[in-house]
């Protein structure tokens, strides 16, 4: 007879607010030894504040337990497509944490922040070189903010050309990240969706047909979210320019082409990069990232403020471009992330960056051939950084959805790929192994995927309940949205939301 398993705690039911005990504290605050001055009038002051009361050890245990309920790149293979979940070098965190960097005040005069500023200048130059778009602002905090900057720059340029009133549309392929159309709308443009051609590339005929004097820009993700290069994009760029519009590049997938081709050489006018992807700064559970925007000389006067410049006196300063769209943040962007990206760039060099893109692409193709035949591959051709399979056969034949496959991968010890994206692939499984996965890890991941395909045939019911070995089982997302509980409440209190 086996012993019964002890009942596990419903860990999520008790927040830090529900733990500890009134009167406990995790840190002390020094007493004020000087003269006590009167506080402002009480109607300006708070009379109560509800926060947890835990000892230091309890709080450390609570958050340590939470960390154990998380899966990061350091935990295992994390092939989340279009997110470039590669190993984050620890030395980058180390160097960015130096007191000299960490304590620099954002309002410091340039003379007092030359170490930070010179580092940013060299990063700026490196990104300008790598993209072939020499004018760069490091200000955007993430890719979506970089996109907003890029589209607002186009807005300003059109304004100066006297064409802003007429050019009100932005063309976006249906395979684009959701941020592209959302950004275009936020910048006040109408979005025209361009369908993907049968081979997975941009539908050039539709673009030609749509390109007229009402188009401000075309937003293209290159390589695209199917992991494919847009062949002939340099000719499309000519068409777009011929029609008086701009070519915006979403550089989220730059990892695939670093050192191999440059956006600027191909005719892109403005591109954002995601440094938390290609330049391996930690994703942090959802940021902070950095989304520098790189552009041609023509658009340089519109870059967001600040831009890092080396001045004639040899000092590096933050400057405001002549016709800047303005600031995107109160200060200068996610500087700590930028320092990490600089460290990454310096650790790799050009040869290293080329090795990165080479191996990233080989790994994606290796995974493609390992899984070939086991899952449908709607765009069956060599890929760049990622490969998009479909679970539609499993769904059709066994009633097993991609959702189930993803959840079952957790039991096999892997983070699932991106699912149900891009939207143009049914039951999509979008996999990006990145260059930092060793071949054995890719083989193990493929073996798990194949095992799950077999499970789908033999025991489809079992997959509907997966995962079984995670810290928690499948969660009721529908009720969460229908009856939102979005904050801690004292027991018995009604949820305000």
């Amino acid at each position, binding site marked *: 007879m086996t012993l019964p398993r002890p009942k596990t705690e419903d860990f999520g039911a008790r927040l830090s607010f529900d733990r500890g005990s009134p009167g406990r504290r995790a840190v002390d605050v020094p007493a004020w030894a000087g003269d006590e001055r009167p506080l402002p009038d009480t109607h300006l002051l708070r009379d109560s504040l509800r926060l947890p009361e835990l000892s230091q050890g309890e709080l450390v245990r609570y958050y340590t337990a939470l960390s154990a309920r998380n899966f990061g790149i350091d935990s295992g293979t994390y092939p989340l497509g279009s997110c470039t979940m590669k190993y984050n070098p620890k030395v980058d965190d180390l160097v960015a944490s130096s007191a000299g960097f960490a304590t620099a005040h954002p*309002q410091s005069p340039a003379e007092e922040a030359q170490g930070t500023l010179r580092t940013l200048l060299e990063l700026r130059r490196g990104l300008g070189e790598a993209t072939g778009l020499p004018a760069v602002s490091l200000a955007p905090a993430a890719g979506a903010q970089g996109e907003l900057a890029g589209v607002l720059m186009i807005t300003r340029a059109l304004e100066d050309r006297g064409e802003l009133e007429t050019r009100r549309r932005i063309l976006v392929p249906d395979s684009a990240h959701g941020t592209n159309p959302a950004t275009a709308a936020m910048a006040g443009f109408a979005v025209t969706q361009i369908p993907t051609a049968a081979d997975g590339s941009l539908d050039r005929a539709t673009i030609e047909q749509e390109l007229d004097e009402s188009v401000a820009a075309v937003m293209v993700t290159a390589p695209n979210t199917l992991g494919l290069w847009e062949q002939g994009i340099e000719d499309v760029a000519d068409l777009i320019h011929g029609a008086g519009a701009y070519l915006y590049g979403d550089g989220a997938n730059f990892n695939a082409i670093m050192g191999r081709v440059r956006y600027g050489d191909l005719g892109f006018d403005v591109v954002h990069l995601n440094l938390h992807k290609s330049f391996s700064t930690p994703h942090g559970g959802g940021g902070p990232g950095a989304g520098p925007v790189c552009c041609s000389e023509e658009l340089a006067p519109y870059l967001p403020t600040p831009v890092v410049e080396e001045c004639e006196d040899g000092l590096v300063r933050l400057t405001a471009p002549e016709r800047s769209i303005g600031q995107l943040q109160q200060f200068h962007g996610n500087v700590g992330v930028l320092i990490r990206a600089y460290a990454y760039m310096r650790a790799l060099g050009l040869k290293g960056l080329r090795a990165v893109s080479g191996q990233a692409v080989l790994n994606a193709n290796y995974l493609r051939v390992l899984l070939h035949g086991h899952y449908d591959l709607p765009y069956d051709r060599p890929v760049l950084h990622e490969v998009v399979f479909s679970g539609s056969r499993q769904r059709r034949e066994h009633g097993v959805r991609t959702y189930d496959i993803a959840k079952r991968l957790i039991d096999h010890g892997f983070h699932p790929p991106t699912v149900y994206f891009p939207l143009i692939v049914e039951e999509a499984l979008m996999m990006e192994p990145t260059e930092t996965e*060793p071949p054995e890890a890719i083989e193990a991941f493929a073996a798990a995927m194949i095992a799950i395909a077999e499970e789908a045939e033999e025991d489809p019911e079992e997959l509907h309940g997966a995962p079984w070995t995670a810290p928690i089982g*499948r969660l009721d997302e529908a009720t969460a949205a229908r009856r939102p509980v979005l904050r801690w409440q004292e027991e018995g209190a009604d949820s305000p939301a």
Partner: protein
Amino acid sequence: MASPADGAANGGAPHPYIPATEADRARMLERVGVPDLDALFSDLPAAFRDPAIDLPTALTEPELIALLEERADENADPARPNFLGAGAYRRSIPAIAAHLTARSEFVTAYTPYQPEISQGTLQSAFEYQSVVCELTGMDVSNTGLYDVASATAEACLLAVRATKREAVALLEPIHPGTAEVVRTYSRGAGLRVDLVPSVSDLTEEHACLVVQQPDFLGAIVDLEPLAEAAHASGVLLVTVADPFALGLLRSPGEAGADIVTGEGRDLAGGPGFGGPSLGLFAARSPFMRQMPGRIVGRTQELYPPPDGAGEPRTGYVLTLQAREQFIRRERATSNISTAQALIALAFTITTQALGPRGLREAAELCYQRAHDASARIAALPGYETPERGPWFQEFLVRGPVPAEDLAAELRARGIGPGLDVSARPEPEAREALLFAVTEATPNAHVDALVAALAEIGGGA
């Protein structure tokens, strides 16, 4: 000497971050069915392939550390007294905040799309939302936006959507960076941004009134009359609050605010030349489905645990996602995706480590130290500290010499002066520098400042 990217030359891995050796690569290429790596890039246009790119050569880890330590040393000495505030303040951060935030399960995860293996990120974010609601007096918080200024811009966009009006009013004195970012974000939406000196300038064209608490020149604002005046014209009140000051000050929600934004960076770690930052964003529940950014909700397992030990357990998921760009695309409430999750975690741990009493005590200590420093300076011959009502941690100093000269004299004595605000329109700011003294400003720094000011005053 072998450079780190040369490993491939002798059959090894090309770099410590890239595991595949020459032999691995050969085996993989064969399986893929291509002769070499270059063949994988055949879709790229041949005329533009492999361009010359001017990047510095690779550095080994020790070389990298040496270079960046040298760089960090080119910044001002971290130990030097510095009285700059104006949006970024020195705080005492509990050691456990940095320690716990550095756990790689938090650091190297991404957006919690798979809740079963992301409860650490999700439950922490729920803790964060709870802390922000308590501090601000709001009903709903998201998991954080980029920074205070972009969060305030998003608040303006929400107010515009909710009221269907097309102008926003910012009450002076407000941080110029915040005003600038609101202008940037308004450009796309075609909104008018009015900087108003008084609440009496509000009209029924305004979607919201944005008020900074404490204001840009340090004064504590009585929010309630502003809320009443705004609401009388159907205008929403957006409060840009310093969350640390909210340890002492009445919550904006209690005073009538509809949306509260703030900057969380100072409670997460050092100023770091401004970033990574953290934009707090919380609102009253009627605006819940209009909010930008990610929101975490509490729910239950669909199935009881397999050991049969009991009831479905509690867990956390991203929720109300129908607002977001990856679902709603051009009809989303914002384009935001990746934000500042790890900074939000550090912010949460700091506030929870301080707890209800600690946060109040730290805020009071900050208040006392700043007022003490201000009083000592005001007592020096030739100096005054013009006040605009009750204030928290920042004060204006007008000296015997013009503001610019006073700043230069302090710098010459190894002291970082307060921000020069002498060009501002407020009469109290005339020829003044804006000094910040907080709970984390060492006594010795204040002593050095007072001595230096006395010396400058003596020579004037």
